[in-house]
């Protein structure tokens, strides 16, 4: 009997210790949900997702109430300097010694490729708002990747298809000569050929080319109906400017395959007016987008680009998923994120697919001419809403974990 009592006591003590231990740990690890924001704070992509992405994610945390499951939410940020080694080292430090639970922002595909690898190894969530590559949900997919705002396939589908279908069949590419440009050219070419068009030529211009006149002359000589700019940022701005100067815009359409709002603002309306493109978000679309964008502009000083709005929406969805899951443990949160339907001013008719791709409505827009603009922020006219399943490519068998 005595022995029996002793055993019971031991079991009771063990049980209470276990319960006590669990209660101490809580449903949230380290009594805090910590989100890192990795972005380009001072380089060429700083305007599309740099300090603005930090602001957007901080806004999401504040709007959520600052706490989740009774525990505080903290945001930390770092500059990746557009270098994969710098970015992945920072992420490693965050997840291995600073208890960061998820990393948001994530801009340049090269940096994101390195960063998501570290995150996956540590079973932490990557909230990708601005990188363009399809790879994060195909060849380099991971059960911990969430790819939110757009990708190159959605851009190519959204912009190229309507132009080919309108009868402009002969295309010429001016492509940024690195992985991103090649990928964008590749998916756009597929869309052109599928819709009965042909590619009559192309040039690969080094990243950061200041003078596009030689390439514009070659595009002109090719006799193409449409000149596609498979580049981004300053390259697009400079290429378009040169195209207008050399009269190319009078004889052919110029299609920018990846144009963010700050880039469109940097273009002279006289040359960019009338150009059509695809975007994942436009601040002036309706009351809901305007309301959020006005708040964002008050804090950040400029209207949000699609990556900013995406970063906000994605962070909100992440926090809601933690609340619904009752824990910040990555697998449970990812399961909830994919189960719940994202729905806010940014994510319309949205689903988060098993491969981590967030599919939502995209917008086919036209850059307004100088006469059409009421002020400097009035830049796009929304021509059409592209349903997500039309814009995004279907899930591919390339992604391993989805198959299993």
């Amino acid at each position, binding site marked *: 009997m005595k022995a029996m009592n002793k055993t019971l006591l031991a079991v009771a003590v063990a049980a209470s210790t276990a319960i006590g231990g669990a209660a101490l740990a809580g449903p949230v690890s380290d009594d805090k949900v910590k989100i890192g924001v990795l972005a380009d704070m*001072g380089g*060429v992509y700083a305007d599309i997702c740099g300090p603005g992405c930090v602001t957007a994610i901080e806004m999401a945390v504040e709007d959520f109430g600052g706490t989740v499951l009774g525990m505080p939410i903290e945001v930390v940020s770092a500059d990746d300097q557009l270098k994969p080694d710098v970015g992945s080292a920072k992420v490693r430090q965050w997840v291995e010694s600073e208890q960061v639970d998820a990393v948001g922002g994530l801009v340049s595909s090269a940096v994101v490729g390195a960063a998501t690898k570290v995150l996956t190894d540590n079973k932490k969530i990557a909230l990708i708002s601005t990188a363009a590559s399809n790879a994060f949900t195909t060849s380099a997919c991971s059960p911990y990747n969430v790819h939110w705002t757009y990708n190159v396939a959605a851009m190519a589908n959204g912009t190229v298809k309507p132009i080919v279908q309108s009868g402009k069949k002969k295309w010429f590419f001016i492509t940024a*000569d690195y992985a991103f440009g090649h990928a964008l050219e590749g998916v756009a070419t597929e869309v052109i050929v599928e819709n009965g068009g042909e590619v009559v030529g192309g040039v690969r211009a080094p990243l950061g080319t200041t003078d596009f006149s030689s390439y514009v002359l070659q595009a002109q000589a090719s006799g193409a109906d449409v000149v596609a700019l498979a580049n981004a940022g300053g390259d697009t701005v400079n290429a378009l400017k040169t195209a207008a100067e050399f009269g190319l815009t009078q004889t052919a359409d110029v299609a920018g395959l990846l144009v963010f709002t700050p880039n469109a603002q*940097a273009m*002279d*309306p006289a040359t960019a007016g009338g150009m059509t493109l695809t975007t994942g978000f436009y601040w002036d679309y309706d009351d809901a987008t305007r309301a959020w964008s006005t708040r964002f502009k008050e804090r950040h000083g400029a209207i949000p680009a699609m990556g900013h709005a995406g970063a906000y929406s994605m962070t909100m969805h992440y926090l809601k998923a933690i609340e619904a899951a009752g824990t910040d443990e990555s697998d449970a949160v990812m399961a909830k994120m994919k189960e719940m339907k994202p729905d806010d001013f940014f994510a319309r008719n949205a689903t988060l697919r098993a491969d981590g791709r967030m599919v939502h409505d995209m917008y086919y827009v036209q850059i307004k001419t100088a006469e059409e603009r009421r002020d400097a922020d009035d830049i796009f006219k929304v021509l059409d809403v592209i349903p997500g399943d039309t814009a995004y490519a279907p899930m591919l068998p390339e992604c391993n974990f989805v198959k299993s």
Partner: protein
Amino acid sequence: MATFLGINLFGLFGQLLVGLINGSFYALLSLGLAIIFGLLKIINFAQGAMYMLGAFAAWMALNYLGINYWLALIVVPLAVGAVGILMERLLIRPIAKEDHLYSLLLTFGIALMLQGTFTHVFGSSGMAYAIPEALQGGFKLPFMYLPAYRAWIVVASILVCGVTWWMIEKTRLGAYLRAGTENAQLMQAFGINVPLMVTLTFGFGVGLAGFAGVMAAPVYSVSPDMGSNLLIIVFAIVVIGGMGSIGGAILTGLGMGVVEGLTKYFYPEASSTVIFLVMVIVLLLKPAGLFGKEA
């Protein structure tokens, strides 16, 4: 269309002309560097930042003060030159007696700070600056459409480069300047204020970069990194031409523009490296540069 050895001649002429246009730009930029190095032995790494400053100053003058392009073409180089003068007096002079490397590092630091400040204030996407009305449109040549503004760039750059070369090589003032940098003490004994001459020369060289910035504003986007992108190319041109050779800088600038234009036509992927390839070859065969004097 006329072809020769399978090459579309019209296309080729177009590329040659475009090369010449870019070359006149290179000439203008490398000229400022060559003057500052040739006469003062200062390696000015802030020249690209001064070019950027010129473009931004033109943009700010238009948007804040309503100063148009033509007026900016005069006012901005003076303002940027004044910045150069301040820089020389306050920062470069105290270390002028040290090794060249000190001025190189100092000016490089200044360039990075300026670039960082402009990125912080104006963002990295750049600003739009329209081509002045009088120079909009262009000429239809048999082999290409030549925008009027590009033609203006060639004319203005060659004019400015020519006058500068003539002043330094052919006038009495230029002779004083060259003598002053050879033997400052002797020139001072003749009653010539050498330190003032040095300051003004530096200001003039920097002002040239400001002028190039105004010229560039309508064709390239006015952005904080526009100078750093170009600076290395322009330095390579100065090295190819022969460090400090004024005429060498001008001729090599034009020539390299053409070489680059042709590379863009035949093998565009190499266009950003071809100038450095030429630099390597020239340095191997003629270490002082094409027009440089052997030390």
